[in-house]
């Protein structure tokens, strides 16, 4: 029997631990003598800090220390720029990064000003009320469209305006074809702010051990290794003196890869300063005020088409809201700019964007990471063009798909990974055909919809397509070790937030080493176990870390066979690796187990050949040249109550191509979760700031997440497999596939349901309240 796990819906190995409460989360870390921290956060969106008086708070019993920006001395520095701008010719970028504690000025509601360290969180919060801050309020910059007007307050006063960046990218020449177009569709489109709202808020425990001169940090980060490296630098320690552990995380979705958060800079520093373990657990209100948000763009877009519905070119100028700082560089708007092009052949493209500082929370990637905005623009323009040209949504899309023979397809413009945007492989028509079939498009439109309309019901259908840039570099690593019991351990540097790494990486390693998957244990996110790597983001875990696991397992396999060849005195070609042992082909009694080999690979006496590396162990790295491009089609049928405008999704179909599938169940899980968040984006969720920059949605009462009642019970999925040529496993990422096109689909189907030629939706989210207003205008 040869074990084979890849490609099967292997049940998750981590679930037993998670479901029985045995998995470690940061808040489970309880250390003797531990202190807790609470932050005084700005109640103003924009104000000068005249004075901070902490004297009364310091007198409160149980308060151990209080820090303001001044108390940090030399340690007070703007945080590092996480992502520098890509090498684009026409680019301006002003890096202004967040600080540990606001010094002279606050730039958004929630910005930390004072850290109170106390015996417990209750006392720390009591002490917050004793602190007096003398603010001089400044006008808040909230409206994206007005932020660049002359005489607007400056958020960063050393800059000439609130412009953070300006980028132009071009492919072909839009202006040369505009006059030849039969149809021009021109619209303003906007996509409002939303937040990830992971179930687990952020959390940090830091423990400075003076005897060992060792700093240990438990952090809800998606990027433990960069945190280790950054902290070592900031604290003046060597990298080996810092251990960062990202244990199980209750969801992350992007905001937990942002670094360094103020709290991440401070908590370890405080522990070192005081010499006691220190904990900070973000509460739900803080999560809205202190964890980054996303979305927030306004596009002025134009599409030129031939009368057959072929795209001749696109012209798009957009504003991107980066909030008060821009530590994540241009990742989000560049993703919007690039992903807008989708699975379509667009010969001419002019795209220009301005990134704007506003007095709001910092914007960094959240599942989708700029892509939903780009896709929204493309899909809306196609919808409108289709209406004008009397084509169905599927027809106009299919006419513009890049053809299989056009791959690798060069989009020429530069992507977020600094390389020109190239689609590695793809075959788009089958995804569309499958989706149309699964939603039963023809039957719905020809038979069901007319009947429903006659009954007075407003039921509509939609279909959209998209690409998902995944699996970008630079690299990840993995260390695979076979021990004396024959069990295999795998260590990788990526953090884990629910993606099933413990299962899928084990599937890959078990297949290479021919062991039972239950004999493979995985460690992720502990820098003492693996100290090279980047983190989990951009749907890259499987592509980059998965292939590193594969490479390391292959090296170990080579070592196994070499050693077995010596022990069994038989050439490698005659050996067979199966069921955790090596045997000589045709002579099953001549065999040795992996455990026995592991012992032999680590001799205690005698000599080894010079150059021998002990143990059945190998570390390998994988870094793809460019990202792998997944794609897919979503289709849905939804119903609107014409009186109340409540929307119910009746059927939801996702057909997705993420290359070779390691575990179909896990891919479907990713898609289901992503669709739920997409539905949230489309219909329920909205971060609302008032005119003064006050955050009105700072609780789960006001920020409406879809619940299990609100997402479709069943999401019908179909798979197409077009392997990526860029990695040995042929895989592509799938983390964001569910979220990217959902809002675009939602509004298309909504318009179809309401069947009012005057109704045109040009914004996300589309709440019933907003729909009511649009319906009034469309009367």
């Amino acid at each position: 029997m040869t074990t084979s796990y890849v490609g099967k819906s292997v049940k998750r190995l981590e679930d037993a631990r998670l479901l029985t409460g045995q998995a470690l989360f940061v808040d489970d870390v309880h250390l003797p003598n531990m202190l807790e921290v609470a932050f005084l956060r700005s109640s103003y969106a924009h104000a000068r800090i005249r004075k901070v008086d902490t004297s009364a708070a310091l007198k409160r019993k149980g308060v151990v220390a209080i820090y303001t920006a001044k108390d940090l001395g030399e340690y007070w520095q703007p945080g590092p720029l996480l992502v520098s701008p890509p090498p684009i010719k026409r680019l301006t970028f002003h890096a202004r990064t967040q600080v540990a504690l606001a010094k002279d000025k606050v730039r958004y509601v929630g910005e930390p000003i004072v850290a109170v360290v106390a015996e417990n969180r209750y006392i720390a919060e009591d002490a917050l009320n004793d602190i007096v801050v003398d603010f001089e309020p400044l006008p808040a910059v909230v409206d994206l469209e007005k932020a660049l007007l002359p005489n607007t307050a400056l958020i960063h006063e050393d800059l000439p305006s609130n412009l953070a960046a300006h980028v132009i990218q071009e492919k072909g020449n839009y202006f040369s074809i505009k006059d030849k177009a039969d149809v021009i569709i021109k619209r303003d489109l906007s996509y409002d702010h939303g937040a990830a709202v992971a179930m687990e808020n952020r959390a940090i425990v830091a423990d400075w051990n003076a005897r060992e001169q060792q700093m240990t940090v438990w952090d809800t980060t998606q990027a433990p290794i960069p945190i280790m490296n950054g902290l070592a630098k900031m604290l003046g320690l060597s990298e080996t003196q810092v251990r960062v552990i990202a244990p199980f995380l209750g969801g992350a979705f992007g905001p937990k890869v942002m670094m360094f958060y103020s709290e991440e800079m401070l908590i370890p520093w405080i522990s070192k300063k005081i010499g006691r373990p220190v904990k900070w657990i973000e509460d739900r209100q803080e999560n809205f005020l202190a964890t980054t948000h996303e979305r927030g763009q306004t596009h002025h877009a134009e599409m030129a088409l031939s009368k057959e519905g072929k795209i001749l070119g696109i012209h798009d100028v957009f504003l991107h809201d980066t909030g008060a700082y821009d530590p994540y560089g241009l990742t989000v708007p560049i993703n919007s700019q690039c992903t807008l092009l989708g699975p379509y052949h667009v010969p001419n493209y002019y795209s220009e964007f301005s990134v704007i500082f506003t007095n709001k929370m910092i914007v960094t990637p959240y599942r989708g990471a700029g892509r939903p905005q780009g896709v929204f623009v493309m899909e809306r323009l196609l919808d409108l063009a289709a209406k004008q040209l009397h084509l169905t949504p599927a027809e106009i899309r299919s006419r513009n798909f890049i053809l299989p023979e056009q791959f690798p397809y060069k989009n020429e413009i530069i992507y977020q990974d600094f390389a020109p945007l190239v689609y590695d492989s793809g075959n788009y028509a089958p995804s569309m055909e499958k989706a149309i079939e699964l939603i039963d498009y023809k039957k719905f439109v020809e038979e069901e919809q007319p009947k429903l309309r006659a009954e007075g019901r407003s039921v509509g259908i939609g279909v959209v397509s998209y690409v998902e840039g995944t699996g970008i570099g630079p690299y990840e690593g993995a260390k695979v070790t076979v021990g004396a019991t024959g069990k295999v351990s795998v260590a990788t540097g990526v953090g884990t937030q629910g993606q099933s790494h413990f299962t899928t990486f084990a599937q890959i390693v078990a297949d290479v080493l021919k062991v039972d998957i239950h004999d493979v244990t995985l460690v992720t996110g502990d820098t003492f176990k693996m100290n090279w790597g980047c983190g989990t983001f951009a749907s890259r875990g499987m592509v980059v870390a998965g292939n590193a696991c594969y490479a390391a397992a292959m090296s170990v396999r080579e070592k196994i066979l070499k050693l077995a060849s010596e022990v069994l005195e038989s050439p490698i070609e005659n050996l067979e690796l199966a069921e955790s042992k090596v045997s000589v082909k045709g002579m099953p009694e001549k065999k040795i187990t992996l455990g026995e080999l592991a012992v032999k690979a680590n001799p205690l006496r005698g000599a080894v050949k010079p150059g021998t590396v002990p143990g059945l162990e190998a570390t390998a790295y994988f870094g793809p040249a460019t990202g792998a491009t997944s794609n897919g089609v979503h289709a849905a049928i939804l119903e609107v109550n014409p009186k109340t405008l409540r929307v119910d999704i009746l059927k939801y179909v996702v057909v997705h191509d993420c290359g070779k599938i390691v575990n179909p169940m896990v891919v479907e899980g990713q898609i289901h979760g992503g669709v739920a968040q997409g539905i949230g984006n489309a219909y329920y969720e909205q971060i609302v700031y008032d005119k003064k920059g006050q955050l009105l949605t700072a609780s789960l009462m006001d920020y409406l997440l879809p619940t299990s009642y609100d997402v479709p019970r069943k999401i019908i999925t179909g798979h197409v497999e077009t392997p990526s040529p860029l990695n040995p496993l042929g895989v592509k990422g799938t983390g964001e596939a569910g979220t990217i096109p959902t809002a675009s689909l939602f509004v298309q189907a909504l318009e179809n349901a309401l069947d009012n030629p005057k109704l045109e939706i040009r914004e996300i989210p589309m709440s019933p309240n907003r729909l009511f207003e649009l319906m009034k205008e469309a009367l």
Partner: protein
Amino acid sequence: MKPAPFEYVVPKNLNDCLNFLYQHSETAKILAGGQSLIPTMNFRMAQPEYLIDINNLNELSFIRTDKTGGLQMGALIRHHQVENDPLIAQKAPLLHEVMPWIGHVQIRSRGTIGGSLVHADPAAELPSAMVALNARFKVKSKKKERWIPAEQFFVGLFATALEPGEMLVEIAIPAMPLHSGYSFQEYSRRKGDFALVGVACMLVLDKNKVCEQARLVYMGVGEGPVLAAQACQSLVGKTLTPDLLQQAAKIASQNDLTPPNDMHASSAYRRHLAEVLGHQSLSQSLERAEKSF
């Protein structure tokens, strides 16, 4: 999000409770199911010095009928008890229909009817239902006991007619008249949310099918339960027709209500929903009342 320091007190019986409440009327808060009070304390919007836990007071935990067939309930009856009690389903079917709209199962298994009424959230279901049902509330202090009609109990945003030292002990709901019909309609963004707009309705007909009494009480559109007085007026003394009901819903939404404007819904949208839901609830009530003949 941790509460300010407080003392936790567990009275053994109602007398002890009232005594303590009398001594500390300005600084003590009663803890019932805690589903509203605890979040408010965690946000530090409420900072009581004493928390009087009444969960052990069995005296406040009863459901029974009186001689006239009316219902009597102790303030400590949990939402889920109301929801699942066969006597309530029979005697006050409106209440039975309202309950599943309150939060989720978890909240209903702890939240109490008294807590919900005293909390007086303008978008809560129970206050409006009680006004529609002509309920009366028995309130008690160390010094006195009195009855307050539901309509007079709710005096503003999160405000009631309770005086310092007083607590709610009992809710009485009169027997349903012979020819009556009822309905509850609500629109909320998600299942379990407080109402964006909701309405509780009772119609009572005389033996000639003439409308004797109409109670159309909204939630989510004002500072507390809003009785749509003009709309009700337009129905009393008349034989009800679909047109009349349609018109009454319009009167309610246009004349009786001034719905708030907030980020979840504009005043105009709430008004629109009030008309839609008002009409649905009146129609269903009439249909049910007519079945009694």
